[in-house]
């Protein structure tokens, strides 16, 4: 029972242009990263990295992206990530850059990290609040994220039953 070991790179798309969020999608991002690797490391680097390279998860609203590659070549990938300058999709090109947040061995660790990271973000946001309205807003969403956890679980159970009866 030997498995292929992977590395998951959690990064954040940072762009000034809000329309860039349009471009945050599997294909566009994958192409951009590949392009960057090819530019930086050449064909060899590209080939190394593209073994099992995929975009595992992305969230256009938060700009979070989870990339996967083989453990052997994740350094090549990580070193190429800063060279991503833009995202291109549907003949639109928007400048942006990628900010590496975390490199993990499993998706799970990345997810855990993401939770923690987002929490700190929200807390920081809460601290830096300027007016009461904002504060309440953030508090509400903070509560909602902890609340939704339970809700999701209960919802999950219902779903379980539904699938089992199928």
């Amino acid at each position, binding site marked *: 029972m030997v498995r292929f070991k992977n590395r998951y790179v959690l990064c954040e798309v940072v762009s*000034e242009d809000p*329309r860039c969020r349009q471009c945050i999608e599997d294909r566009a991002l994958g192409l951009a990263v590949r392009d960057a690797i090819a530019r930086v490391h050449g064909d060899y680097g590209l080939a190394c990295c593209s073994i099992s390279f995929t975009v595992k998860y992305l969230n256009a609203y938060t700009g979070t992206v989870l990339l996967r590659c083989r453990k052997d070549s994740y350094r090549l990938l990580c070193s190429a990530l800063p060279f991503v300058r833009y995202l291109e999709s549907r003949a639109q090109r928007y400048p942006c850059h990628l900010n590496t947040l975390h490199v993990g061995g499993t998706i799970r660790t990345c997810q855990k990290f993401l939770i923690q990271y987002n929490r700190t973000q929200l807390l920081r946001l809460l601290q830096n609040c300027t007016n009461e309205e904002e504060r309440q807003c953030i508090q509400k969403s903070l509560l*909602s994220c902890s609340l939704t956890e339970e809700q999701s679980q209960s919802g999950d159970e219902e779903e379980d039953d539904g699938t089992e009866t199928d």
Partner: protein
Amino acid sequence: MSGAREKKRAKKMRNQPASVTLPAEPGPFAGGGSRACPTPGDVRSEQQQQKFSNQSSGPSYRKDQNFSKGQNRGERGTGRGGWQGGHQSVSEEMPKYITVSTFAQARAAEISAMLKAVSQKSSNSLVFQTLPRHMRRRAMSHNVKRLPRRLQEMARKEAEKAVHQKKEQSKTKCRKARRRHINLVAEFNHRQRKNIWLETHIWHAKRFHMVKKWGYCLGNSPTEKSYRACYRAMTKQCLLQDLSYYCCLELKGKENELLKQLARICSIDTGLTFQEASCLSGRFEGSLNLYRADRYPEDMLGPVTFIWKPRDGSENRQLWIWVHPALKQDILRELKAIFQCSEPEEICISEPVTTSIQEEKQVEVVMSLGNKRKKEDKEGEEAVPVKKIIGDGTRDPFQSYSWISQTTGITVSDRSMEILRYRLIGPLSHSILTETLKAASVQTEMADSETELNNWWVENCKDSEKVSLHQCQSAVFELLEGISSPSDMPPGTILGLTVGDPRVNLPKKKTKAMPDFEKYQDNEEVRQLYLKGVPADCAHSFIWDHDICKNVTENKISEQDLNHMRAQLLIPGSHLDLGPCESKIPILLVQQPGKMAGEDRPGWGSGWDICLPKGWGMAFWIPFIYQGVRVGGLQEALKHSEYQRTPHTPNDFPDCRAGMQFAKELETSLLEKFKRRPPAKRANYVKLGTLSPFICPWGQLTKNWEERMKASGGFLCPSSPHPDCCTTEGQTICDPKAEVVREASPENGEAEQTMEITSSEGALKTEDVTSTQDFGERDETKTSDFIVLRSEKLLMQLSAWCYPTAGKDRRIRLISRLGQKEMTEDVFLPILMSYPRALVWVNLSLLRKGNPELHAMICIPTEDDLLHLSKDKLFCGPQEPKHRDIFKDKVQKQKEEKKKKKKKDNMKSLESDPAGIPDEEATEDHEDLILGLWSDALPDVTSHCSRTVLGYVTRGDFSLAVGCGEALGFVSLTGLIYMLHNQPADKKGLVLLRTPASLQYRFARLNIEV
């Protein structure tokens, strides 16, 4: 497959968050007006998205999306000052204001999605498997509380799921409740609805491989390794078998009436009849073969043994016919037919019902002593607790088992499971009997006036005549120990006896009963017993009386009470003296003669049978076991008959229905076994020249030999058929052309024949013709088209002919001793004429190497073979040249056709074209072509191989008794005479044996033992 895998994957990924992209947006960005990144298209992500939208119903992404048109993500900039690194370029799309709320909501939604993913385990493993090993505990698998608290919730869910998936548990009660006696008995009764259990079933089921056969659950062979040990027990010690599954049919009526009808179903030719004087007196047990009334030698019903009740002054006689359960239905029907016993006897049904209800209540009041027949008292069953079934549990209570004839007053009743029968085989059976059983003491006073216990015995003891008879019986029984082997008694000796409860003198430990011959060395009485046998009047037993049997069964002291009484003994372990309360059980001892035919090992496998009233099975069984007997099952019985060289029921009776049924079942099971092998590893029987490896084609064999006899004019002259059988001969043995014509037009031929034929024999032949046509389904024939020769005179003659003359003129001596004629044409021609299609039971012992197997072929050696053998003493035997598989092409073609058909079917299913049905049918005709099996109608089985086939082996194995391979089987009578006629005098009876899966022939000597 892929669907299932996808489903599984979907289930696994259900909790994983899907990528979230912006939905399609109208406006300047959407170049082609296309949607935003189309989700991978599986249900999961759609669900996920829906959920997302559902969850955040209030401040949802949709809102966010609304913002996103006008607002930009400068919010982030304001949210976290330095993040954008001052790259903010002002443009039209930049919002004038920012909302923290959308930013926070987006993060919050992501957190919740991730939380969900993290909190659910993603792998397929169980919860406690996710724990590191050092934290695992054994009890975790069933006790949730053993897990860390954070995992308990998940584990609980998992456990529920596992329970849900498991089968519905039938055990509603706890084990203690299930094992409670009442429930246990109810359960046992329930379980033996289909297949009856013998009384020793539980004992057997713990130690034997059980098989369901003939409506019974029987022990096949012991689970321990005991093949050789059982043989040794048979030869030197004692082997015990439970033969209670044998059925007892009882006939009651006037002697001459009974004999008159019974004479119709057996023949003096085969040996005994029911009329045999020694048997008729009740002194000896007889065995014979039954035939349909007036149909001898055809329409065999099966072998039976019978016991007459000794004459007791009255005109009415009682006869027990013991039959194998496989033959019971046929024989019972025939008996009913010949005695015209059509109507069921009313008294027999109604009487037990009424009485038993009364008794049931009575017993309930007293102490519910003993067990009862449950079947007869269905009405009483509701009131009383469940009773163990004793006797035939499957019998419908209202189905009659006794029939009476109005004209003659003869009653035929089915007493199966009413009388138990145990068989002891081996020389030690005497000492075991005498050690186990003690003759009952004479008792003149009732133990307890209220119970019926022993009241019959007390009454009998008042009669001095009966007392003296009992004393005589017990004296003879005591003397048995002095006789070294059961075979020293006259065959079939019957000894009636009344014994005390064998449980009382149970030894404390398992011992080995050894005879003490010195005690009887010069005993005059023993010598008398040797010479005269058991006196005639000693055969009387009370077991013949139904009422006494019933009384004995009902008044058995239960094991529990007995143990209770034992526990109350003053000196623990001392002999328990029940005094007048001790039950008296009438039994019947029947000597089994063992090997009688042949010259070697006379009397091998002799023993005693014990008949007991039902209900007493275990009470006698355990004491026997404690005396050191070994117990055998069906396999041991088979071996016993094999070493005795006697035909075993129903394996070796191919001419009776049970035998045919058996052969058919054997064929299907062997074929199944054959098909289970991978095709490349199967023996190709076509190449080996074996036509039918799984069944013996007896009909085909005899028919082919008949044709051969006709064809070869040198051997016999067909022009002058014997006068008394020319009518039948003329019809059946036509020239081959006519046969061909008939086969070509079966309907016409059959019609012609049926017109011609008036005799019953002819009708048989018609069936034969039809059967040979579709010989692919050989089992279609209802009645057999051949007979098995059982006429003692003829067998004696054949047996004498089989002996070679080599050793000191032994054959001449034998022939002169038996008063037989030399083998000349005028002697055997009439035999051949009267039995054109007969089989002879033979035994074969291999000269040198070789282990014969089931369905091995018995072949005639050529002259070269014999010459080779006489020259080279180490010559093992010739080899069969390899045959060509003529069916290989066909099988391959069929395979291809199947493939094509499959393709076509696929096409058809696409096109949904209904026109392809005839094609399918055409291919289905050859559906059962199997590589390596002869798939056509069998050709001439005798001349298919290089050596002419004479017959087949029905049982063969290495014989521990003789020390070489031995086989039993049937050969064609015609073929046998042909072979003997052509063989040189010193090589008579030499045949070749070839197992189905081999090309090697082995020499064997053929013997007929009478």
